[in-house]
C-alpha cells in the first residue's frame, strides 16, 4: 500500500519543525494520496523518547478501528524514522481551539467528537489497553469523523502473558493536567481504564471552554485540587459566576477576557452535557461510567442529524465574514483550503479501511 522509499513521497508542506520530530504534509505519488509524514531523528541523547515511539508504533499497529489514527507505514531512512499517517484535514482539536473556536466548540460538535472518541476508547479498553493521554491535542478531525491519536502514553494490562488488575506509572509531564487523580496519586491501588474517562471529562471542559484546564497552574496545586475532588467545570450561564471575584467583577479585565466572559454568561449548555462531564470527573474511579455506558448517555442524542463538516464549515464561514483569519498562518491555511481537501479526505478514508 505505501512503499518504504522516500522517492515515492512528495513533501508539500511542513507543519512543524522540531529537534526530535518534524511533521510534513506529503503526497504519495504512487496512489496520489495525501498523507502526513512524521519524521523522528534517531540521533537523540535520550533513548527514552525513541523507546516510547517504538512502543507507540507497535501498539498502534495492533489496532484497527475507524476512530483510531492509523499508521499507514513506518520505515527508517538514514538516521530518521518516518511514520506515515492518513491526512486529517481539520488537524487537532487543540489547533481548532486556537484558530477557529477560541471560545469553545459548539456543544453538538463536542457530542459528535466524543461519540467517536468513546467508540475508540471502547475498542482500546476492550483490548486491555489504556490510552493514557486523552486531550484535545490528541484528537484529530476530518470531514466526517474524529480519531484518537498519539499512543505514547498507552499502557496495556497484559504484560509477559499475564493480565494485571491495575496499572501503575504516571503520565508524561505534558499531559498531567488531563490525568486522573488516581494516576497522579501513584498509590498501591494504581489505576484502570477509568482514568481515560476522567481525561475525557477534562477534555470536554477544554473543548467547551476553549481554555486548557489548569492552564498555568502549579502542578502540585493541580494535584491537590484533584485529590480533593475539585474539578474544572463547563462554563455557561449557570456556572460562569464562579470565575468572578467576591465583588462579582471579572478579575484581570481586558477586552478579550471581557468578550469571553460575555459569551460564557450568555450561552447555555444542556443539562445532559453538565451531567456527562460530572460523571466523567467523578473522583471515585469505580463510580465513573465505562466507555460503553457513556455512549448511551443522553448527551449524544443531539448527534442524530449533525455532522462534523457542517459545523466546522459553518464556523469557518462566520470567521471568514469576520475576516479575523490570517492567511499567512500555516495552521489556519489548513482550514482555509478546507473545501478542496474535504473531498480528498473522503478518498483517503476509502483507501485506509
Amino acid at each position: 500500500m505505501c512503499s518504504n522509499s522516500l522517492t515515492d513521497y512528495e513533501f508539500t508542506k511542513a507543519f512543524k519543525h522540531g529537534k526530535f520530530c518534524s511533521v510534513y504534509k506529503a503526497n504519495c505519488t504512487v496512489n496520489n494520496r495525501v498523507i502526513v509524514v512524521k519524521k523522528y531523528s534517531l540521533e537523540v541523547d535520550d533513548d527514552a523518547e525513541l523507546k516510547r515511539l517504538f512502543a507507540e508504533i507497535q501498539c498502534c499497529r495492533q489496532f484497527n478501528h475507524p476512530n483510531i489514527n492509523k499508521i499507514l507505514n513506518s520505515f527508517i531512512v538514514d538516521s530518521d524514522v518516518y511514520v506515515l499517517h492518513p491526512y486529517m484535514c481539520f488537524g487537532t482539536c487543540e489547533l481548532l481551539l486556537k484558530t477557529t473556536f477560541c471560545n469553545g466548540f459548539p456543544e453538538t460538535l463536542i457530542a459528535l467528537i466524543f461519540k467517536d472518541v468513546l467508540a475508540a476508547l471502547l475498542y482500546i479498553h476492550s483490548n486491555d489497553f489504556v490510552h493514557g493521554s486523552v486531550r484535545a491535542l490528541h484528537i484529530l478531525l476530518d470531514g466526517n469523523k474524529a480519531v484518537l491519536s498519539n499512543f505514547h502514553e498507552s499502557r496495556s494490562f497484559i504484560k509477559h502473558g499475564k493480565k494485571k488488575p491495575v496499572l501503575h506509572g504516571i503520565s508524561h509531564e505534558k499531559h498531567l493536567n488531563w490525568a486522573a487523580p488516581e494516576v497522579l496519586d501513584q498509590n498501591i491501588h494504581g489505576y484502570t481504564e477509568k482514568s481515560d474517562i476522567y481525561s475525557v471529562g477534562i477534555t470536554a471542559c477544554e473543548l467547551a471552554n476553549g481554555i486548557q484546564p489548569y492552564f498555568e497552574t502549579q502542578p502540585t496545586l493541580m494535584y491537590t485540587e484533584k485529590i480533593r475532588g475539585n474539578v474544572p467545570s463547563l462554563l455557561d450561564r449557570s456556572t460562569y459566576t464562579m470565575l468572578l471575584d467576591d465583588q462579582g467583577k471579572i478579575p484581570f479585565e481586558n477586552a478579550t477576557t471581557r468578550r469571553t466572559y460575555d459569551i460564557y454568561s450568555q450561552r447555555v449548555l444542556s443539562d445532559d452535557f453538565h451531567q456527562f462531564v460530572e460523571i466523567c470527573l467523578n473522583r471515585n474511579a469505580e463510580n465513573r461510567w465505562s466507555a460503553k455506558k457513556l455512549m448511551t448517555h443522553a448527551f449524544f442524542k443531539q448527534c442524530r442529524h449533525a455532522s462534523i463538516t457542517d459545523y466546522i464549515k459553518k464556523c469557518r464561514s462566520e470567521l471568514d465574514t469576520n475576516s479575523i483569519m490570517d492567511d499567512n498562518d500555516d495552521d489556519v491555511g489548513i482550514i482555509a483550503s478546507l473545501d478542496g481537501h474535504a473531498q480528498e479526505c473522503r478518498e483517503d478514508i476509502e483507501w485506509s479501511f
Partner: protein
Amino acid sequence: MTVTVTSTHVMDAQAKSTHLQSGGGGEQQHGSTKSLDVAARDDEMTVLLTNKNYHFDATSDIEDAFVELNGSDKDMELDAAVAPPVSGNHQTEHPQVTWLDDDAIDALDRVTLDIGNMFFNRVDSQDIIYQQKKKNIKMVGKYVMGDVLGEGSYGKVKEAMNSENLTRLAVKILTKRKLRRIPNGEQNVTREIHLLKQLKHHNVVQLVDVMYNEEKQKMYLVMEYCIGGLQEMLDHAPEKKMPLYQAHGYFKQLVNGLEYLHSCRVIHKDIKPGNLLLTLDQTLKVSDFGVAEQLDMFAPDDTCTTGQGSPAFQPPEIANGHETFAGFKVDIWSSGVTLYNLVTGLYPFEGDNIYRLLENIGRSQWIAPDWLYELDESFAKLILGMLQADPSARLSLQQIRKDDWFLSAPVVTGPPIPIPPLKGDKYGRSTVLPYLEAYHYGNEQDQEDVYFTEHDVNQELARRAASAAAEIRATKSAAASAACHLYEPSTSAEAGAESMLNGSRDETVSVKKKGSGLKRRAKKLASCISVRKLSHCRTS
C-alpha cells in the same frame, strides 16, 4: 482530629523502636509500622514499655499512668500550665522552657551517648513538652520533601515529589557529620554515587539526581520511589515467609538485575531481602550499593579481596577469611540464601553470635533438609546448587537461567503476601500530600501551635497497648466461650475490668482533645534498659 494525629505518632514511635532493634542498617527502609493488631502480644508491649523507659524513671510505669488518668482534671490543668500560648497567665509558673529543634536534640543525644549513660537524670514526663510539627513545606531544588521513610547510620531517607512532573521519589539525605563517624563512610558514598550513575536497568534502583548543600553539609541522593522492601514484607507476614510462586517472581527479577550488574562488572556483595525493594507495580529493585565493588576494566577475572556484607548472607570463602575470592559467586551465594529465606523464613546457617554464625557457614557443605525436597524437589536442588561451599562448583547465573525450577511456573497457591502499609496507610499514598495541602490551602485550623507532653505520649502508648491487650483478651474469651459454651465467672470479671478500662480510655480521648496532637521525633537513646515483664492485669 487530634486523636488521629496521636495514632500516627504512636506508629512513628514504634517504627523507631523497631528500627533500633534492627540496627537501621538497610537503605531506604520504610518505617516499619507494626500495627498493633498484627503483633500485639507481649513483644509489642515490651517495646512500648522499653520505649517508655528511655525517657524517664522506671517508677512511672503504666499503672501510674492509669491512676493519673483517672484524675483527668489535674491533667488538663497541667496541660494548660505547660503550654504557654494556650493560657498565657500561667506562663510565669514555667519560665524555663527551653525549646529544642531536631538538631539540638541530635546534639543532646550525642552528648548523652558519649557520656555513656553513666547516670540518669530524673525528668518528670509532664515537663517534657513537644510541639506538634507543622507540615511546613520544604523544598530541596525542585523536590518537595515528605515524611521520613527510614533512618540509618548515614542519615535519613525521606519521601519526596518532583514538583514539575509529580513523580514520587525517595531522597537519601547524607550529612557529612554522620558520615565521618562511619569507617570509610565518605569513601563508600562517593563510590556508591559513582556506581549508581552508571547503572540503568529495570531491576536496579535508579539514581535520579544528586544535590549538595554546602552550607548545611548535606548531600541529597534522589532515587526512584519504592513502596517497600522484601524484608519488611517478610516481617509482616505470618511465619515470615512467602509462597513459592511469589518468591519465584522476585527471584527471576533478581537474576535479571544481577546479570545486568555483573555485565557492568559490578559485584553487589550485599544481596539480602532488606536490599531488594519493590516499586508500586511490584518490580524488584536491587538497592544499596554501599559495599559494592566495580572490577577494573582490565581485570583478568572477578577476583575480589574485601567483603563487608551482612554476615548471614556471606559465603564460606568470606566467612573463612580467604584473602581473595571470586566476586560473582559471592552474589550467587547471597541470592541463594535470600531465596531460601524468602520461601522458608529460615536461614541455611544460624549462630548465636556472629562468630558462631561465620564458623557454621565456613565449616561444611550445606545439606538440604528432607522437608525442603518434600516442599519442591527442583527448588531444593537449585538452592543446593547455589549454596555450594566450593565457589567453582556453585551455579553461575547462566546455569541458574537454565535451571528447572527457574524455568518452571510454580502453581499459584493462595494470595501473595502484601506490601505492608506505609505509615499506617494501606494505600501507600504519598506522604508529601499533607505538606502540599498545607502549602496550597494553609489549613487554618492547624495554624495555632499544638503542644503536648511526654506524659501524654506515654498515656497514649499505654492506651494503645491496653486496647490491643483488650482486643486479644476479647478474642480469646470469645474463642473460649465459643469452644465450651460455658459461662465462666473469670471471663465475666475480665469483661467487667474491660468496661472499666473502656471508661477510662474514653477519658483519655477527651483529655487528648484538649489540644494534644502528637508527633514526636526519633528518640535515639539506646535500649539500655528493657523491662521484660509486663503485668497482665494492668487494670488492677
